[in-house]
């Protein structure tokens, strides 16, 4: 049986990976609990952000100087080293996660940041290296640290590994940077920095149209983010001048988010509103454009299918798993926190964009014949849910958006891992090019079914919780519009099931391998793919059955956010 060979523990790599997991556990044991350390040690700057980026830069510089033949020899030690390096942030963030779960007194509240550190960076214009984590960013940070090693393992055998895997690591560092940045300038720097490794991942390891896709991806998102930057700069100069460590010596303004938040709160609560309503709205819209494109929301979504279809598996996994969430994260972090009135003003617009993304993404999915493209559009559809959560103006809706980010961050990498394995072993992406996958590749079939089911929101898997919460929050605000998200639930099921019917099922006793295999017997997935996917599957179940692990801090954060930003409830 082809299926059994995957379980043969003949592969040294298996033991190695197992060993590494043990190392993570071991490393975690050494990290002291936060209460003792949060004032002295900077757990974020170097270990979580700097270390991956620096290590990957060194590895890349090292590998790029080698000849082609040497590179192939070096690929194994380099990716092993990369994997170990990626485990260290994972160990740290997991230790922090446990700290949060066990030590209840550490609250990841809005505008109260854990492990906050601040170093002055560019004095003249008030830029500082200000990092910290709260209930919004922490789950995403953990997710990133979690996904990078998973991605490395899943795409263990990617060609040219000497540069591929370090790029993944660099990507992870930059993504974490986005999530921990508490300074607008720093945020923007990391925001753009994430583009570069992704650009190369698509460009060098992509499919046939990679040239077009890589450029489109870069330019499209870059265009959006410059508009966002203009909004940020305008906002920067609209704030009252001040003095202090965070303020620029020349401009008298600051990029420090925490200062901005407290200013926004202070000014909006009192009579002295420092920005006019329409000014708020304009700035809000400008910032949102950048984030909506990243999310992506219809009609700014067309870069995503191209990027996903062309990107290599690892790139897709990180792109869908974390990079899209940057959009949602950014929304919640900046425009919504600073312009709560504008959120109310644009509430219906956000709702409409969310609904359109949701419905349009799902419908287009149904019409796709390319497996990866379908999954890509399903991401568009799911990201619409986040907008609905935001538009609902309910803490539960916001918590749903947060949880959606998190859950989709676990599920969608699995979707793309399945697509990647499918492409890898069947040399085709066409839905319906073959039948009866369950016959040859039972593991792949199981993972595919699992991932598909998780994505269509089956209860007890991570995706359901968020959808339920969003619908609960949606109803009192928008009433019968709820039929549309409801219809999407059915359409989502339809396209997933239909695609499964035409790949996993059917085929008769003989089966119908795709033509692209030229009559060879299709193999099942490799051990590394298996390991990567099973870890993702396990976590999908864990967070589906025990959502409170992550939702706890999200709920705390949303409540604090509503009290702090919208001035609702409490106090």
């Amino acid at each position: 049986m082809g299926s059994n060979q995957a379980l043969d523990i003949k592969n040294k790599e298996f033991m190695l990976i197992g060993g590494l997991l043990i190392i993570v556990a071991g490393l975690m044991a050494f990290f002291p609990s936060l209460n003792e350390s949060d004032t002295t040690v900077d757990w974020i700057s170097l270990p979580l952000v700097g270390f991956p980026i620096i290590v990957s830069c060194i590895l890349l510089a090292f590998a790029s100087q080698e000849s082609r033949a040497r590179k192939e020899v070096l690929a194994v030690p380099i990716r092993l080293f990369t994997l170990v390096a990626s485990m260290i942030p994972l160990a740290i963030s997991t230790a922090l996660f446990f700290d949060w779960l066990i030590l209840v007194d550490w609250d990841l509240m809005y505008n109260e940041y854990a492990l906050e550190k601040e170093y002055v960076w560019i004095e003249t214009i008030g830029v500082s290296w200000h990092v910290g984590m709260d209930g919004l960013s922490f789950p995403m940070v953990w997710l990133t640290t979690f996904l990078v090693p998973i991605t490395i393992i899943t795409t263990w055998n990617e060609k040219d590994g000497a540069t591929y895997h370090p790029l993944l690591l660099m990507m992870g560092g930059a993504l974490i940077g986005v999530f921990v940045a508490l300074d607008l300038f720093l945020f923007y720097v990391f925001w753009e920095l994430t583009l570069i490794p992704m650009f190369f991942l698509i460009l060098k390891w992509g499919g046939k149209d990679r040239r077009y896709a890589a450029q489109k991806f870069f330019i499209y998102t870059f265009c959006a983010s410059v508009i966002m930057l203009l909004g940020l700069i305008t906002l920067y100069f609209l704030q009252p001048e001040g003095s202090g460590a965070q303020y620029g010596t020349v401009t008298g303004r600051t990029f420090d988010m925490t200062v901005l938040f407290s200013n926004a709160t202070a000014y909006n609560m009192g009579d002295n509103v420092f920005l006019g309503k329409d000014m708020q709205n304009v700035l809000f819209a400008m910032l949102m454009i950048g984030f909506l494109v990243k999310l992506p929301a219809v009609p700014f979504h067309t870069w995503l299918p191209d990027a996903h279809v062309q990107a290599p598996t690892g790139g897709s996994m990180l792109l869908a798993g974390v990079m899209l969430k940057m959009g949602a994260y950014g929304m919640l972090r900046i425009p919504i926190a600073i312009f709560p009135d504008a959120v109310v003003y644009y509430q219906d617009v956000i709702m409409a964009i969310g609904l359109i993304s949701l419905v349009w993404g799902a419908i287009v999915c149904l019409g796709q014949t390319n497996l990866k493209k379908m999954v890509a559009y399903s991401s568009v559809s799911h990201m619409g849910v986040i907008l609905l959560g935001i538009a609902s103006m309910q803490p539960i809706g916001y918590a749903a958006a947060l949880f959606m980010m998190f859950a989709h961050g676990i599920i969608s990498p699995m979707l793309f891992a399945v697509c990647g394995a499918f492409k890898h072993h069947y040399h085709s992406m066409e839905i319906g090019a073959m039948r009866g996958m369950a016959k040859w590749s039972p593991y792949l079939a199981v993972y595919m079914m699992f991932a598909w089911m998780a994505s269509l929101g089956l209860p007890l898997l991570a995706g359901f919780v968020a959808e339920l919460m969003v619908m609960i929050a949606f109803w009192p605000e928008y009433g019968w519009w709820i039929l549309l998200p409801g219809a999407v639930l059915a359409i989502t099921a339809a396209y997933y099931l239909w695609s499964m019917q035409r790949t996993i099922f059917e085929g008769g006793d003989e089966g119908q391998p795709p033509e692209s295999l030229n009559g060879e017997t299709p193999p099942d997935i490799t051990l590394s793919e298996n390991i990567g996917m099973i870890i993702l599957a396990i976590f999908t179940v864990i967070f589906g059955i025990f959502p409170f692990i992550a939702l706890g801090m999200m709920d705390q954060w949303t409540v604090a956010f509503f009290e702090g930003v919208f001035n609702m409830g409490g106090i």
Partner: protein
Amino acid sequence: MSGSEIIDYAVLIPLLPFLAFPVILFLGRLFNGTPTWVKNVKEGGIIALVAMGASLILALSLIKEHMNKVGAANVFTWFESSWWNPETGSITTKVFGFGVYIDHLTVMLLFVAAFLCFLINIFSIGYMNTDPINDNRNHRFYAEFVLFCSGMLGMVLADSFLWLFIFWELMGLCSYLLIGFYYERPSAAYAAKKAFLTTRVGDVFLVIGLVMLWNLFDGTLDYDVLFNAENIAAVDSGELQLALGMMFIGAVGKSAQFPLHVWLPDAMEGPTPVSALIHAATMVNAGLYLVARMFPFFGAAEMGALSTLAIAIAIIGGITAVMAALIAFVQMDLKKVLAYSTMSQLAYIFTGLGSALWLANNGYDDLAAFAMGASLFHLFNHAMAKGMLFMASGSVIHEMHHAHHEVAHHGHDDHHDDHHDDHFDAQSMENMGGLASRMPITATAMFVGSMSIIGIPLIGGFWSKEGIIASAWKVALKEPIFLLPAMLVLIGAGMTGFYMSRMWFMTFAGKPKTEVAEHVHEQTPWIPIPLVVLTFMTLGAIIFAGMHAGHWLGDFESGHYTSFVDGIGYEMEHVFLNHDPFLMILTYVAIGLSLVLGPSFAMALYGGSLDGNQKAKPWMQWAINLSAKINKRSNFDNSAWANSSLANSLHKRLHFDDVYDAAMMKIVVGFAKLSAIFDTRFIDGVIKTIESTSQEASRRLRALTTGSARDYIMMTALGTLVIFMLLWGVA
């Protein structure tokens, strides 16, 4: 603390099978094909059986404990989230917890579920493990089987509509997996998808209904809050009706009622134990359970405010009852007849529930309690009988398969294990006939089961069915619209008599229609056990009839008949000796229809004696003889009917499937394909146009750089002019 109670362990009932799922799956992957695994563990069947047995024992002790009292236990907090109340402006924490809740309804359904799961597990070991087509995948069957059982038991025990829904979906998943068990068959793949999607449509509405309910009841779906009469009275009943209506659509999907009924016949693609368990005995009852759960709302809500919904439920039930029965007339596939029968009987229960809800909402508490009891009792009877019927049919099919094997084996020695090259249909009744003598236990079970479904007096379904019809008519006397469902269920009674008899006579009476049918005989010991058990359950339904009147209706506190004998008396009164002359006549009309008219027609058309040397068991022989007599006497020629357009469209299942398929493939998928094109051509086209336009603009702009220095000077001069103009414009 008064020590731990049994209810604290109730969560184990669904949890055990749930944990067995990965165990079976993993061990199966690991040991698949090894002798121990096949012989001793029955490819996972024994592990499943142990889990199910443990669950059953726990369930029984729980039932014993809570026969007369409501119980609840909190298990864990799923998650908490916060809610901002626009009116008060405060943010409160809403808890989404999971717990166990037991009342009369739970007790009944828990018994049905745990009991049938266990029996069908036994049956499966006999059925699945001897079928060569299942090589290497039975562990998958058992894994999915226990997962399903976990879902069913969980749904019954859950203490909130939220978890009811979660388990409900879990069952849907298992149903999908098990229908698609033979994944390589296109028809199975299609049926699985169809089942999931159709129920999913209903589920969408169910979710919406739950969301509405959650909002109505200020952030909870827990039964103990929802069923509080004061809470219900405080809610706007119009919105409540909408919410409950939405939830009812979910029930329609799950219980395969018109118009979401199309998936159930196709679901027969799954292995027969699956049909027995999921698509007859348990999962399809989930919809009924959901509607039955709504009972407290109707009782406590504003008088008459929810009548519309009750009527709608009854009408949907009535329509489905007749429609499914009609289609069942022409089915040749043994399992499909049963499938339509299931649909029809569930429809009866819906009608009964509709009546009960109407009565409850209009203040007739006593009548409502009776109607409710009758409906639930019918649910019980039907589950037992239909589970049995399906298992019996499975037995027939299984043996037909084996017999076909033998026949084929004798015929061509060279390729004996290839049973797919010829197209013998082991499920078609056209290939059967005269099996009564060859499969006595099966035939008996089928006989009793059919009688129970038909409503032959004193057997199983009779007790409950007459109650439903009577209740429907009681409402119809008060509410004219109700005449429609009442009439339909009355007609349906006769139709049931016809198609069930037809099935039985075609299969078991007459001469064997094929060579295969002659070689059929019962062999494996695992199959008859559940058949025998269930036969006696069905025959002893009068015992439960007494109990239903005593315990299964209404609230425990206001139970009307606490003694067993009282219950039987009450039941008798309602069935045979109704004090209302109209209802009494009606009851006898119904009995007549189902007992006389339907079976007579069936006998006239399909009856016949066995082969000369064959003899059925005495309790069936009389029926066979009678049928042979009627058949000979009447000499019916039904070719005109068989060729009629109605028969044709009945063969085509009244075109529902065609229309739905066409709507799905042509309209929805067509629109989706168009959308995909629109997305790339237009939305992305805008981007591409910007790109190509800018390239074109670039080309044109660069064409201005002609290469001649004179032109550059001229442009400089022109630029100077422009600057002057701009400067003067300001100055």
